[in-house]
């Protein structure tokens, strides 16, 4: 292929490419483009499978620390109020004084979800948590997490039990006595 052949090839293949891009452009003009105007428009998110910011029911938590043990980066910090003997409370009656998740460390892997015996923690559909400092990346879930959206029969039964025993109101009152407000009640 000679010198002019090369030039001709360049022109020919470029013209082919331009023909293609023009057709795509025409399609975009007539049928709309592929892009979205974020943040005014958002992509649809599957609320069940999406692994976003945690949904957590502080009143149903039994402070077993299974999620903290499963966490590969140790980003979950759990403390519960001491009982009469000074030991941290466990089980149904436990009152959470600290349930912090450090989102600067969190991998959003979802390994904290399956071990939970009371199914009070899940990864939800929210994903946006901008902040200016590292401290802002720590979320105090004990002051009110989002209720878990996806409830299994086991979880529903547990909620009924908790309600019947009046544990939701009791725990909230106990936390208030410790100076922890409940900003967003869960399944109360």
């Amino acid at each position, binding site marked *: 292929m000679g010198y002019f052949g090369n030039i001709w090839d360049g022109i020919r293949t470029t013209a082919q490419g331009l023909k293609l891009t023009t057709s795509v452009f025409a399609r975009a003009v007539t049928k709309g483009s592929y892009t979205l105007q*974020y*943040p005014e428009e*958002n992509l649809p*998110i599957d609320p069940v499978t999406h692994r*976003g*910011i*945690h949904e957590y029911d502080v009143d149903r938590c039994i402070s077993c620390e299974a999620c903290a043990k499963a966490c590969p980066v140790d980003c979950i910090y759990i403390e519960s109020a001491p009982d009469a003997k000074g030991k941290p409370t466990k089980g149904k009656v436990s009152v959470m004084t600290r349930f*912090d998740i450090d989102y600067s460390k969190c991998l959003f892997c979802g390994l904290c979800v399956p071990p939970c015996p009371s199914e009070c923690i899940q990864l939800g*559909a*929210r*994903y*946006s*948590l*901008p*902040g200016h*400092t590292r*401290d*802002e990346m*720590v*979320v*105090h*879930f004990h*002051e*009110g*997490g*989002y209720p878990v959206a996806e409830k299994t029969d086991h979880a529903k039964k547990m909620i009924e039990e908790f309600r019947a025993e009046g544990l939701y109101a009791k725990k909230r009152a106990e936390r208030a006595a410790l*100076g922890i*407000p409940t*900003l*967003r009640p869960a399944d109360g």
Partner: protein
Amino acid sequence: MDTKEIGALLKERFGDDVLDVFQDDRHGHVRVTQKVFVEASRFLRDDPRTRFEQLHDLTAVDWIDHFEVVLHLCSLSKRLNFCLKTRTPSRDDATCPSVTSVWPGADWHERETWDLMGVRFIGHPDLRRILLPEDWEGHPLRKDEGNPLEYHGIPGIAAIRGAEERLREEELANKTSRAGGRPGPDRAPARTGGDA
């Protein structure tokens, strides 16, 4: 041809310098002395029965009293996989002959092993750190290597953990609430994607 047969070939050629031929359903390996390590590598590469033309992986394992250098070889023409091992004389004398003369591809693998494990490869043309910075001290994959406290003014994880614990103790002592942080996830700024 499996590890046992290749081990037999090596035994035939190197005799007592082949120390261990092992195979189970998971993995197989042949361990040779350091003396014949490079020679055995060259033999495995050049012998028409084996032809391991590709060094797949080179690494080392810290077994506390010595290091074990592990080579994974691959023969593309004969479709064979093989694992060759050798041990360093001791933990303090963590040296091993380099196989860069046999497989040039061993260059970076040996640099990495030196960098992270601290096995010095004798005969390597340019044994420098590769993944870590040049002024790093220690070899992090050794089992006795602790977490560094500080590097150029950046606190290490050990220092951070210590500081966190101290802060926690102070808080408990003073009963003060934690500074910073978000009261709940719904305090995130309003115009954001996920919160809509």
